[in-house]
């Protein structure tokens, strides 16, 4: 998008105009997102510090290798790719809703908001399945000389180094931090997706009631859009830190 030509000698800081050339609400949404970026950043960096400090960490290709309906087939990266794609697609429908808002096209905004909400719900469903699979799955772990069957939880990590036991390779307990970081960070992100869906539903209702037509602009859709894109942005980094590397 091109902006109208701005005079080169515009005095942005002389008062009477926004030095950032956007409304107060949008500036504050950006600053909120920046602080949220530091919160997520601190979580992910803390995870990285602990992961760097131990000799063994769970191999993500080993932990996240299931896909609904495929039983015990080994499909590393497949399900999380689907989740990533769902979020990218819902980001596109969101930016299309903003685009329709610029054109004051109420019907278009409604349709794209509905698609965005469906994308958010689809992502949350995927995450619910993934968590259930990890928590309820059971894996043989050698604990104090005998085999136990563990799921992945905040207090149990069955993905430690493998040892030979009675002629077969068996995992030992891994660093306990794995479950806490995984469920903590993906849970915090999932909570953002959930609140994003709620915000989008509110925006859809307000659009349907004609509030933005009365107001003369669809800037609220842009603010909700900023939040939604931020959720996608965070997922890009969660995808990198937990699943890819």
């Amino acid at each position: 998008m091109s902006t109208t030509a701005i005079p080169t000698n515009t005095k942005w800081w002389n008062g009477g105009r926004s030095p950032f050339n956007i409304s107060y609400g949008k500036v504050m949404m950006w600053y909120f997102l920046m602080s949220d970026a530091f919160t997520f950043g601190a979580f992910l960096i803390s995870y990285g510090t602990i992961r760097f400090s131990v000799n063994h960490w769970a191999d993500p290709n080993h932990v996240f290798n299931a896909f609904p309906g495929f039983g015990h087939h080994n499909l590393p990266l497949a399900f999380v790719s689907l989740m990533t794609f769902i979020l990218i697609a819902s980001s596109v429908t969101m930016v299309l809703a903003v685009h329709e808002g610029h054109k004051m096209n109420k019907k278009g905004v409604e349709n794209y908001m509905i698609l965005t909400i469906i994308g958010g719900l689809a992502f949350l469903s995927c995450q619910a399945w993934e968590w259930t699979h990890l928590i309820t799955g059971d894996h043989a772990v050698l604990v104090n000389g005998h085999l136990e069957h563990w799921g992945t939880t905040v207090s149990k990590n069955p993905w430690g180094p493998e040892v030979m036991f009675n002629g077969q390779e068996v995992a030992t307990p891994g660093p306990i931090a794995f479950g806490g970081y995984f469920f903590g960070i993906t849970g915090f992100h999932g909570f953002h997706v959930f609140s994003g869906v709620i915000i989008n539903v509110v925006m859809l209702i307000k659009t349907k009631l004609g509030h933005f037509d009365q107001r003369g602009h669809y800037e609220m859709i842009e603010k909700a859009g900023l939040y939604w894109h931020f959720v996608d942005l965070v997922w890009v980094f969660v995808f990198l830190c937990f699943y890819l590397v």
Partner: protein
Amino acid sequence: MSSQVTSPEITHAPEHASGTGRIWKTFWVLSFLTGIELGLGYLLYYTHGNWGYTAVISTKLTIAVLTLLKAYYIVSVFMHLGDEIRNMIMTIIVPLCLFIWFITAFLWDGNSWKNLRNTNGGSHPAQTEQHTVPAVEKDAKP
């Protein structure tokens, strides 16, 4: 295209694009970058144990750079930060530079922690090296 003035302090209303070409182009760019990331992820998976430390780290760094590129496209196009004036872009980007120190210092610290643990506080040579147990298909347990 009529420009909507949402606030009297906004003196230059941006002229919004009439088409959606740029949005879809960005969608394909993001999908393509994700595809490359997945390709490198699978490359790491299928060559695990055969590649040396440097090759694995370089591949992971490449994936991280591609992720930053994706972040750039999301923020610049989807969040329209690229369309704002320079003042606005700088008030967001400059504080985020803190992450450069944040990531470097803490990962360095984690690595130092591991070295101290493996060498008993530096009193004897390292005995264990960091390694990841390769995922092997046969041990997908029921």
